[in-house]
């Protein structure tokens, strides 16, 4: 497994290079430039040109790319044009929120999605299955911004149980109790994803339930719950594991709407705002981190396959 992991890590390098070149190219193809935005309405063309020169943005694109790449290889993602602080610290500030939000959301997804999926599969065709399947469809269909605003209306404005928005760092006053700021956003994010997991667990378990080894287990007289958990659910997990992996990555990079509704200082909002401000170093840095995240999660999912399914060999 070690050799396989090392080989997979090596293949990350060309993928990362290609991704970084594409990101760099696309970012610089967008009209608008940071100098104009930074200097504002009243700047003259000469002043914009001067700042563009000072920022090195007048160089040919390939020169800019290799300068940036050289710095990245030394662990320097550059300095944010907007915040005037190192890109790494800007990303780190957003990463705390995004990772905690994704983790809490995953907890809800597992706690809600898996048991209901198992229940739905084991009660296949009965009213329980119909209710849970219908509920899952409803949860998947509700727009997150709508659900988020209603959760705020009920639990913040109405009941006063949770804060409506924002997220102070765990290192700020409040410490771990600041996690309460993430309860409503994580539930908002969890709803459509838990629905997906319910459907996936249900479908996978029904597929596995039709296989010969399950019929054999039942024929041996094993308890139905034992068959459902040990023989059906465990084998169904193989497909679900991949979904968990990519859901986690997507929760970090694609939670823009939820982060906007709840005013969370996460990675998704950071990248969108950086695009609007043409903060090239931050855009490039964040997307690079997201690409790495996806690739690492992909690798972890592959490694998890081998643990879940002994038939899978890693070469």
């Amino acid at each position: 497994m070690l050799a396989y992991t090392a080989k997979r890590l090596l293949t990350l390098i060309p993928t990362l290079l290609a991704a970084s070149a594409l990101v760099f190219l696309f970012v610089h193809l967008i009209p608008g430039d940071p100098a104009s935005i930074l200097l504002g309405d009243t700047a003259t063309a000469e002043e914009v040109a001067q700042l563009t020169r000072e920022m090195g943005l007048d160089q040919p694109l390939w020169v800019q790319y290799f300068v940036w790449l050289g710095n990245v290889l030394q662990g320097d993602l550059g300095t944010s044009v907007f915040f005037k602080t190192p890109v790494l610290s800007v990303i780190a500030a957003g990463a705390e929120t995004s990772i905690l939000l994704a983790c809490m959301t995953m907890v809800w997804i597992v706690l809600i999605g898996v048991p209901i999926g198992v229940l739905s599969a084991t009660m296949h065709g009965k009213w329980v299955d119909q209710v849970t399947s219908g509920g899952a469809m409803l949860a998947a269909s509700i727009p997150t911004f709508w659900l988020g605003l209603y959760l705020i209306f009920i639990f913040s404005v109405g009941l006063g149980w949770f804060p409506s928005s924002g997220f102070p760092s765990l290192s700020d006053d409040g410490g771990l109790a600041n996690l309460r700021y993430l309860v409503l956003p994580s539930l908002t994010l969890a709803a459509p994803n838990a629905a997906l997991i319910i459907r996936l667990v249900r479908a996978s378990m029904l597929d596995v339930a039709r296989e010969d080894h399950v019929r054999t287990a039942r024929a041996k007289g094993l308890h139905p719950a034992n068959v459902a958990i040990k023989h059906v659910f465990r084998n169904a997990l193989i497909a679900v594991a991949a979904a968990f992996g990519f859901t986690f990555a997507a929760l970090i990079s694609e939670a823009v709407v939820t982060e906007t509704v709840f005013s969370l200082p996460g990675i998704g909002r950071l990248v969108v705002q950086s695009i609007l401000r043409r903060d090239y170093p931050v855009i490039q840095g964040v997307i690079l981190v997201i690409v790495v995240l996806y690739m690492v999660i992909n690798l972890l999912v592959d490694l998890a396959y081998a643990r879940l399914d002994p038939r899978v060999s890693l070469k």
Partner: protein
Amino acid sequence: MKLSRAIRSFALATALTTLSTSVWAEGVLRYATVGEPPSLDQQVITSDLTTTIAHHIFEGLYTFDASNAPVPLLASGETVSEDGKTIVISLRQGVKFHNGEEMTSADVLASLKRWGEFGSRGSLLFDHVESVEATGDYEITLNLKEPFGPWKNLMAFINGGPAIYPASVMDGATKEPISPDNYIGTGPYKFGSWDPNRKIELVRFDDYVSPEGEADGYGGKRVAEFDALNFLPVPDAGTRIAGLRAGDYDYAESIPGDLYAELDADENVTTILNGGPIFGLVFMNSKVGPLKENFALRRAIQSALNKTPALQVAIGPEGLWRANGSFAPEGNVWYSESGTENFSAGKTEEAKSAAAESGYNGEPIKFMVSTNYPFHYDTAIVYTKQLAQAGFNIDLQVYDWATLIEKRAQPDQWDMFFTHHGFVPDPILISVMNDTYPGWWATPEKQELKNRFTASSDEAERQEIWSEIQALIYEQVPTMKTGDVYTYNIASPKLQGMGEATLIWPSFWNVSK
């Protein structure tokens, strides 16, 4: 067992923290903003959000009282020579910067020089300045090339204006905004921290030396009642409203117009109108394209537009807008009806024939608008429809704001673009008066009137000349005004000292809860 203990501990910590946070929050003002400002460098940034935050940190030599008249702030007074060309400004003594140093004329001189060369509005004054010098530890002398009436208004307008920084900060400062570690001013609150996407925190400056006199507009006594001001970016309007109702914010800005009646009737919410209206502007290209120097065609376009439906669509409730063609709101000293008969004619057929007479033959007119500001886009959609009905071939180009800013600097990329303007206390500050602002209106007629307008120090004479300039704007149409828009904010009823309307930007000295 262990799990239940952990859950109990978390619940207890949450309860204790909630309690302690609510006590702590009494001394903190929590202001929900629409986003983050580009920088807090008040001299070079004209963003309203920048000023909303930064005018608690930085102060200028003058500011405005409630009647929009300039009054001393860091200055203690001035003498103007008989020929109007030498202005000697005396400074208040004992004023401290946030770094503990005392403000002297060296700091003021360095600040004025940087603002004059690089400040957003600095050239408006410094084009008329021969020299500026420190003529004493607490005295600054401005030597003008010719008498320049609006000098004090320009000094008092802090948005893109001459905020006073320590000379050490101004050393080497250019057009590029200074970094946050240099946010050192003399205001009642000092810069604390900027946590990206989370908050900007200002903390009370305990050594603040306030101007004397009763509080009046932005003038008079300033007392920092809060321990800290937290400006929290909350981009979603629904969340800003819900957060204020839930008690998570004390103040929230830029609330949608269609909710005004509901919020105004809610006793748990105080609505605060912004006293200075903003107004949409459509600029026309004076450098290239079909609109260049074709004033007849521009007037034809102007006469095709009926502004009322655009305001109804873009803003909503009638209490929040006025179809006012004057560039100053009614009641203001600069209000004038001169030329406004052409403000919102909506004469489709007459516009069609006037366009034909002007030589227009249906070539596309490139009209740029941004979706970043919904009221820009909504207004442009109504205008485009009205212009199409009058036979104009409008090529509506929709961009994000950053792209529009880049394109409008390139004369060959557009014929008209939509933007908006904040309330300004002197017409010299309106962007159309700036010859280098995109649109590049600099006709001889404008220059002649502008020279007379700036040379006069007599207020009545200046108001008369401004009326002539406004008439010229309606004749040469370098820009078309949409109408006055009164934005509003909401506040917790617990806030004391806010008043019913803001002068221009909300201020939180002399405010408590």
